[in-house]
């Protein structure tokens, strides 16, 4: 399984945290739409995330377009777990730097 990018990990984390809609993901991660959406498309094609339309009812009633929401697949969860572990390791490296800052 290919390693996901940092931004990709952010996106997966957002979805795991419950932010399912595209714009919410962008809000949470702080990524621009030009970055986030391509990631979403890629990951969907790779099978890490799955997308579906929200229920029909509310959108029709309100006369607005439906929203599409994203979920993590098993693979996606796996990939996220791996990324988190990696991040933790990286954090240890930076923790010292960060710690010096703080202590400073």
């Amino acid at each position: 399984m290919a390693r996901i990018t940092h931004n990709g990990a952010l996106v997966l984390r957002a979805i795991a945290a419950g932010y399912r809609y595209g714009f919410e993901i962008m809000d949470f991660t702080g990524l621009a739409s030009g970055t986030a959406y391509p990631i979403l498309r890629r990951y969907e094609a790779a099978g890490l995330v799955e997308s579906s339309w929200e229920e029909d009812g509310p959108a029709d009633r309100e006369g607005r377009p439906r929203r599409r929401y994203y979920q993590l697949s098993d693979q996606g969860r796996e990939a996220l777990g791996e990324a988190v572990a990696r991040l933790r390791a990286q954090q240890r490296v930076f923790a010292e730097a960060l710690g010096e800052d703080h202590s400073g």
Partner: protein
Amino acid sequence: MKGPNSNRLGYAVASSLVGLAARLLPQARRADWREEWRGELWHAFSRGRSTAGTVLRSLGCLPDAWAIHRRRRFRVRQSRTHISRRGHMLEDIRFAVRLLVKSPGFTAAAVLTLALGIGVNTAIFSVVHHVLLAPLPYPGSERMVALGTYMENQGIGPMMVSGGMLAELREHSSLLEAVTGYDYAEMDLTGVAEPRSLNGKSIFPEFLSLVPIEPHLGRVFEEGDFRAEAEPSVMIGYALWQGQLGGRRDAIGKQLELNGDAYSIIGVLPRGFRLPGAEADFLLPKRTSSVRLRESRGFYWVFGRLKEGATLEQLAQEVDRYQQARIDAGQDGPNFRVHVADLHERLLGSTRRPLMMLWGAVGVVFLIACANVANLLLSRLVRRKREAAVRAALGAGRGRLIRQFLAESAVLSAVGCAAALLLAFGSIALLKKLEPSLPRLDEVRLSLPVLLFTLGLAMATTFLAGLIPALRTSEGGVALASCSRQGTLQVRQGRLQPAINAAQVALAVILLIGAGLLLHSFVRLVSVAPGFEVRSAMAFGVGIPHYRYPEPRRQMALIEGIQERVSGLPGVRSATLADLLPLAGGWSRIGIKEDLTPEHLGALVASVQSVMPGYFRTLGIALKGHDFSEQDRTGSERVVIVDSKFADLFWPGQDPLGQSMRTKRDGTLFRVVGVAESVRFYGLAQDMEPTLYFPLLQDGGPISFVRMAVAGDAGLTAEDVRSAIQQVAPDVPIQSLGTMRSIVQATLSRPRFNLILVGFFAATALILAAVGIFGVLAHSVSLRTAEIGVRMALGADTRRILAGVMRQGFLPAAAGLLLGLAASFALSGLLAGQLFGISPSDPLTFLAIPGILALVAAFACYLPGRRAARVDPVRALRAE
């Protein structure tokens, strides 16, 4: 939308941006993608988010759409190559078969053309392979050599080799692993209801180590059988075993009576057994010791096998030394040389050249056939451009299209190959019947190398014929839109198809010139005057059994009696006997003693015949002086009749009558009593040799076989003659040799064979080339129907249309004709050895063939031209 107007505006702007960006996506995905973005945007605007910020965010739809677009194209390209790589060969072939079945006319034409082109090649290659290329079926055959005696100053040879030479080689040669010989054993099968003459051979012991024999029944000769005191044994041939002994297994041990003597049958030769260069009804072991061999006056066909490392040149030197010693010792005349040759080469004789040329000829036919198939495929290709375009639009790559076309031509080749093998099988059988005297013909068959060759040809056809159209179709993009309703394009067949036609015509011309030369030569050969009258004089062979007529005196008496009896038959104008008849095979030569020979001649060898009175009259040979009479017999003055060639050599400018000469046989003086016109004794194309005729009754020696010629009225049959002879000599084997005319015809059999074959190939080439021209031109006309219709509607003359079309078709033919003539001129020298009476640049042939070809080509162009002239402009324009 709830919320401030600015949001509504913002939403409108962002939404249209999304709508624009959506254009980048394929139709199928557009709606969903648009909705997804618009869904988010609506949500964002209606929640009262920053308008500017959200609009900015909406700009992200562009890279999103772009990324999707790029990824999709990449994936499609991947799937394209993915499909091509997955071997769809089976599908291609299945599709090809369906397609070919749907156009039976095209398929039949292509398959027939291929069957013809490949089939004749297979047949001829099987001959070339088994006769020329394959080594002889004997162990160490590449080291086997044959010896022959030659009289170089007279161009005679190869003749049989003396026993002394054979003995010398057997005992003293250090270069030969084994050497052996055989000679003729023409004996009569006696002791049976219908005695007949058989052609056997008697062999020396080493024969079996050079030519191992696997007997069909019984055993081969062993050492003991060759001893002088051994019981006479015989190995009989398969045909003799079947015919005379009914093919029964208990034949072994039975007795066979030959010339009145009993021989014990020890074995049956395998079916189709042949000695190198000869057939044998039976084999006898030579029961003679070395000493007797050396001193004998016998002659043998000698062959042997060199030791490893020994060369032909070394053996030639050794043989030369022995022969020189023999000449010095007076055992041979000074002009008698013994040459050695590779056995295979000797057996081939002069058939190598003609066979290679025949092979070249069929190769030409093959190329023309391939060209026709290529043209057929090219023509079909134009109609299939639409199909090709559709395929290309659906994602088929260039490689895929090429493979499809190759699959089609592969299927055609496979079917053509199968048909070709059938044709080849039949052709080989026919060849064997037409020309049974070809060396090693019994070995010719459809063996593995031949089958592999056929397969190779079929594959070559697949590529040659299939690749050209395949490459043509994938050149450049084929836009769907440019195909008209008929599915045809403005034809770019332009130059390729006519060029192929020109090449076909050039090749056909080469073959036609070759056939023309052979035909002219054959006509000359047939009209050669043989020197005797080719009437319907009947020829017979009469055996004189030694056991019934043991003394020469009684043999002569028998001969005289037969002549008298047959001459007296009603309907017989004249009858004669002689030891040999012209062109009927056999030869006899004698050396002339030098003492009376004019000095410039050196040692001379003349052909010699022993004849009864009436010989010249029966055969219609012009005679000056007078014929022999009954008085010319043993004891009376020795007389001789010479032929004009001998007379011109011996007594140039003088009257030969009354002159004298001596032969080497016994030095007796002979007086010339007559001069006969020279006869082509050995062959119509062969030079005439100086010939001597002696009275048979004066001959004195034992005679065991005579030939008889009977000139009679139309009603006379061979049976009449046969029963007449049997009244005088009841137990004498009589063999009918046919008429003198049929004997002469038989000598023409090889040239006729060559002529028939080359003629057939040339005719095939001509037809194929003509069909090719017709096909391409007809196709071009059918494509240009609309254009012709327009021209006619505009008032063009039908005659001009016809002329235009014919010109279009004739131009490549003319170009091919010129090219072919030039090539023929250069190549015709190769035929020189086969031609009789004409030169390789025979003007008649070089004028006639182009004329014939021009006529055929013109006709091939006329038919499509006529169709063009008949185009109905209204219908043609409507169809477009």
